Structure formats: structure tokens, C-alpha cells
């Protein structure tokens, strides 16, 4: 082979000569995600890593997300088998304070109500299935619905079990809308509450003892074991981390879950999720449908949370500000902070943050429970 041939061959293997339009678009999408992470601080840890993964996955020739590429290795090591989201959940558990929820257990109901969005989006996906160019099985629909759980690891875990091919768009939708909660929720909150409701002040929460905080994760896990074993990987991981934090005798474990381990796993998980954004799988009408349905799920979840809070306010002897119902979608701690902020817009002296943390962490439980139901029932129905 002479030198000219060698240059020719080299040229044929450059990116310039091998790009598809789709790959260019996806690299642009990755850049936009990184831009949003950096400039807007939207869920930066995840949007940054997912965005970078999306860029790497769409480089021609290199096959970084293929089975022998390094993103493909991350994917096999922890996404395909559901491991990474569970490790993240351990860290989340070690960072979660169930205190506000234990002080006011009624708020658990708000965490239930806000999951209705999941099932609305699920139905929506089955309706979209009737359109041309879009094909969603029941398992696909369930995975799409779980976007409404507003909890990234839960969405990734469910999708890895039910509908792997949609992992890219579902994870992107979940984290994107979680980061957009401050934009999505306020108008919905204002639409479904009156000013009179929004200025309601809530009684200060009582002190919760350490023993209650130790027993709660055990009790919640016990209930989950009895009623919903398919949710125990998620709830078990969450409560492992939470009990490690609350019990006070295994601080090495608690610190590791909250720092070294969750950070390492976040890097691997983000890049591996990004690697599922290859153009040929991502640039489809189904992705558009998923993005639309994710928004529907967040909107309906916010609404149903608020509506139940209004009902509870009517029947409860203590006052309940309906705004905190919106925090039931989870998206911890963003949704609670949004609730606090909307409350302060009406009355700058109304601090709803701690009250909203109750439904907020209840929403994490609620979406894990919903995930367990989907994992239990979908295989039966199909």
C-alpha cells in the first residue's frame, strides 16, 4: 500500500466521512444537555454525565457504546442488571430524612395521590400506540408512565426490567422534567389553588425521636415485604441506606453511601444512560411521544397531589396548605423547594419547606410502590 492509499484509507475512517445526520443531531442534543447542566444548573450531575455519554455514543467508527466500548461496559455492568439505580437508592436513603413525614404521617397520602400521573401517562402511551409510527407495548407504557414518579433511579430500574430499548428517552425525560419542576409546577399549583388556600400557615412539626427514625425504615420495609415483594429491591436499598444513617453506629457505611459510592456510581450511570441515546434508537416518533407523556405525567401528578391536599385540608382538624400536595410527585428536594417558594410569593413569612418535605419523601416511597406494582402486574397481564 503506498502512502497516498494510506492517507486515503485514513481519510475514509475519519468522522467527517462517516457521520450520519442523526449522529450530528444527537451530539447537538448532548451539548444542549451539558449547556443546561452548566449554565442553568438543571440537575447538573445527571444532565452533564448523560449529555457527555450521548456525545460519546454518537461518534462514528469508535463504537464507544458497543459491547466492547467503555460505555457499553458500564451499561452491562450496572444498567442492564438494574444494579446502579439500586446503589444510587442506597445513597439517596442515606441522605433522606423521614423525620418530617413521621411527624405528620398523613402526608404519606399526598405521596400516594401524586402517583396518579404515572397511570395517566401509562394510559396515554397505550392511546399513542394506536397512532402510526409509534408502537408501545404494555411494558413500554408502564416504563413510560414511571417517568411520572419523578424519580430517576426508579425510572431507570423499572425500564431496565421491563423495556430496555426505551431506556435512553425515558431517563432523559425523567431527569429533564425533574430539573424543570420549578417551571412546570408553579402554574399548575396556581391554577388549582385559591389565594386563600395558598396563604394557609401550617403548625410547626413536632420533634421526631431517633428511635422512631430507626424503626420507620424497618417498618416500611416490612410492609413492603408483606404486600409488594417486587418493590423490595428499591425500598430495601432505600431503607438500607436510611437505617445506616439513622442508627448512628455504621457511619463509615453511611458516609460511603452518601459520598464515594454514590458519586462513582453516578458517573458510571450517567455515562451509561447517555450511551443509550444512539441516534437510530433515540430519533424516533416514540421519543417524541415519551417526552410528551412525561410532561403529562408530571402535570397530572402535581394536580392530583394538590387536589387530595385540598380534600384533606377540608376534613383534617389541622390546617393543610394544598401547595404541599404538589411536592408529592417526589423530585426531591426540588419539588419541596418549589412549594416553599410559591407559598412565600403569597406570604413571605410562610415557611412550607419542612411541611413539603413530608409529601416529598413520601413521593419517593409512592413511586417505588407504583414501580413494584408495575413490575408485579405487567408480566401477568402480558
Amino acid at each position, binding site marked *: 500500500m503506498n502512502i497516498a492509499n494510506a492517507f486515503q484509507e485514513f481519510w475514509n475512517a475519519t468522522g467527517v466521512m462517516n457521520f450520519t445526520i442523526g449522529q450530528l443531531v444527537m451530539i447537538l442534543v448532548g451539548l444542549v444537555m451539558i449547556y443546561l447542566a452548566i449554565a442553568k444548573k438543571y440537575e447538573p450531575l445527571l444532565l452533564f454525565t448523560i449529555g457527555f455519554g450521548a456525545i460519546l455514543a454518537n461518534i462514528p467508527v469508535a463504537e464507544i457504546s458497543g459491547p466492547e466500548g467503555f460505555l457499553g461496559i458500564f451499561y452491562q455492568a450496572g444498567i442492564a442488571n438494574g444494579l446502579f439505580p439500586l446503589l444510587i437508592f442506597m445513597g439517596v436513603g442515606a441522605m433522606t430524612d423521614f423525620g418530617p*413525614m*413521621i411527624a405528620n*404521617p*398523613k402526608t*404519606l*397520602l399526598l*405521596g*400516594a395521590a401524586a*402517583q*396518579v400521573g*404515572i*397511570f*395517566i401517562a*401509562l*394510559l396515554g*402511551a*397505550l*392511546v399513542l*400506540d394506536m397512532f402510526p409510527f409509534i408502537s408501545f*407495548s*404494555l411494558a413500554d*407504557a*408502564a416504563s413510560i408512565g414511571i417517568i411520572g414518579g419523578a424519580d430517576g433511579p426508579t425510572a431507570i430500574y423499572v425500564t431496565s426490567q421491563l423495556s430496555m430499548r426505551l431506556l435512553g428517552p425515558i431517563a432523559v425525560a425523567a431527569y429533564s422534567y425533574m430539573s424543570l419542576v420549578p417551571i412546570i409546577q408553579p402554574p399548575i399549583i396556581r391554577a388549582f389553588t385559591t389565594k386563600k388556600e395558598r396563604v394557609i400557615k401550617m403548625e410547626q412539626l413536632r420533634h*421526631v*425521636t*431517633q*428511635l*422512631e427514625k430507626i*424503626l*420507620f425504615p424497618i*417498618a*416500611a420495609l416490612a*410492609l*413492603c415485604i408483606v*404486600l*409488594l415483594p417486587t418493590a423490595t429491591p428499591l425500598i430495601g436499598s432505600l431503607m438500607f441506606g436510611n437505617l445506616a444513617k439513622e442508627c448512628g453506629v455504621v457511619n463509615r457505611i453511611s458516609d460511603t453511601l452518601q459520598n464515594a459510592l454514590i458519586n462513582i456510581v453516578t458517573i458510571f450511570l450517567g455515562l451509561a444512560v447517555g450511551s443509550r441515546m444512539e441516534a437510530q434508537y433515540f430519533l424516533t416518533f416514540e421519543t417524541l411521544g415519551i417526552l410528551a407523556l412525561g410532561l403529562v405525567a408530571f402535570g397530572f401528578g402535581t394536580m392530583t397531589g394538590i387536589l387530595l391536599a385540598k380534600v384533606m385540608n377540608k376534613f383534617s382538624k389541622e390546617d393543610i396548605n394544598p401547595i404541599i400536595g404538589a411536592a408529592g410527585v417526589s423530585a426531591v428536594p426540588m419539588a419541596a423547594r418549589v412549594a416553599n417558594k410559591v407559598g412565600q410569593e403569597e406570604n413571605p413569612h410562610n415557611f412550607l419547606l419542612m411541611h413539603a418535605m413530608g409529601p416529598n419523601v*413520601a413521593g419517593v*416511597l*409512592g413511586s417505588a*410502590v*407504583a414501580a413494584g*406494582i*408495575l413490575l408485579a*402486574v*405487567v408480566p401477568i*397481564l402480558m
Partner: protein
Amino acid sequence: MSSIEQGLVLMLVGVAVVFIFLVILVFITKLLSYVVLRYFPEKEKPAPKKPSAPAAGSRDAEIAAAIAAATAYSKR
């Protein structure tokens, strides 16, 4: 059964079970708080708990002393 019908079934089961689960959890949590606050109230400070179980409680202090001794020793 059409997939929409399946979806409706799933929705009903799902919403029902989520609520059943969390309603039960409300009661469990209330019961748990009741029992803890009534029968195992928190001492004024968590610190006094240690003297009552010196064998276990003073272990850390003991280790600290050992480490201090070992450090002093090895730095000699």
C-alpha cells in the same frame, strides 16, 4: 382484552394498591410513634445513655485511648 383495557385494569390496581399501601403505612407510622413516645421516650440528651451501658458505650473511648497510646508509642 385490548391493550387499553389492560391499561385501565393496571391503572385501577395500581392506584388502589398505592393508596392501600400508603394508608397502611400511615397507620403503622402512627402506631410506631405512639409506642415509642409512650414506652421509650427519649432521654433529655442522648449522651447519658452511654454511662448506663459502659461495656458497650465506652468502647470508642477505649479505642481512642488505645490509638492515642499506640501513636504516642510509635512516635517515640
